[in-house]
């Protein structure tokens, strides 16, 4: 068997099957290089294993457990907490407020199509209003004329008609006479 550093390391690590371990042991009996390699691995193992185990400075598990259990706050908790507790939400709210203040006039301005349609509507309304007011005025005038009779004017008018009729009858008779 040739030197196989992977198999030798796995042998030292105790990760080989019995049969594989036997093969390595046979090889070790013959190979001084591999024996040296194995001795170095064991020495390093002793050296590093001897260093003391570090202890955690605090109970990370409890802290993590609290962190996980806390999860997302309820709506009531969210409202009750001061705004400082949610810097991201606060920043978004602030940005939205500034945007609304800056863009306020733009939001008030109606779009062009609305302007056109409202202009047309206004014109139609004006035309209708004029028509209605004219009709009203006419109706009022009619009503006024029908309700109040100017007798003097009426008399004058009738006198004129009578005179005209007399003149016509006179001229007719005259003509008649001539014809006769």
């Amino acid at each position: 068997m040739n030197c196989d550093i992977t198999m030798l390391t796995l042998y030292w690590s105790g990760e080989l099957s019995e049969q594989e371990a036997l093969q390595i042991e046979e090889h070790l009996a013959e190979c001084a290089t591999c024996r040296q390699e194995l001795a170095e691995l064991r020495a390093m193992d002793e050296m590093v294993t001897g260093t003391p185990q570090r202890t955690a400075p605090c109970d990370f598990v409890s802290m993590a457990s609290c962190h996980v259990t806390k999860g997302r706050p309820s709506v009531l908790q969210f409202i009750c907490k001061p705004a400082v507790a949610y810097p991201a939400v606060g920043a978004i709210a602030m940005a939205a407020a500034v945007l609304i203040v800056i863009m306020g006039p733009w939001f008030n301005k109606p779009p062009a199509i609305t302007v056109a349609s409202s202009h047309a509507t206004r014109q139609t309304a004006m035309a209708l209003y004029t028509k209605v007011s004219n009709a009203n005025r006419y109706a009022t005038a009619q009503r006024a004329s029908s309700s109040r009779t100017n007798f003097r004017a009426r008399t004058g008018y009738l006198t004129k008609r009578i005179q005209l009729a007399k003149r016509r009858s006179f001229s007719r008779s005259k003509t008649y006479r001539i014809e006769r």
Partner: protein
Amino acid sequence: MQADKHLIRQAQGGDKQAAETLFRRYQDNIFGFLLRMTGNRDVAADATQETFVRSFKGLSGYKEQNVFKSWLFRIARNEGLRGLKKRTRMDASGGGEAMTELMADSSPGPGEIYEQRQMSAVLEDALKALTNEERQVVHLRLKEDIPFREIAKIMDCPLNTAISRMHVAKKKLTCLMVRED
């Protein structure tokens, strides 16, 4: 003491206490591994807490055919790498200390000083001289007694790569220790 499997089943059934007991068994191991990996106490502490937060959330999706310890160390390794990246980014933006300086524990507590006095300073220096990947393999195999096949899964690399990292680390440590002697 209840077996891990029993606790896992209870925890997956919604028993919070069982989950806490289970994770607390590995708390020191995870912190020790992350401290070795990151070389910084603060980064290791943050990564440890994040590891357990993710473990709590992901425990329902854990399948029994995987080794629990390996599953946990895999999460821890990912969190450690994330913590290191974050730290490097912060240093790059702030122009702070170099990575090599970071690897030296910057703020040791009283217990830490006591430990450092006890352990071989030479070995600690030698371990710091290894690459991050080599240090992880050495720690997982020698301190946590995790087999190479599981280490390969945790580190998401082929078995031969994990073994060769171990040998490179061994050579480096031997050289450094001999030089110090």
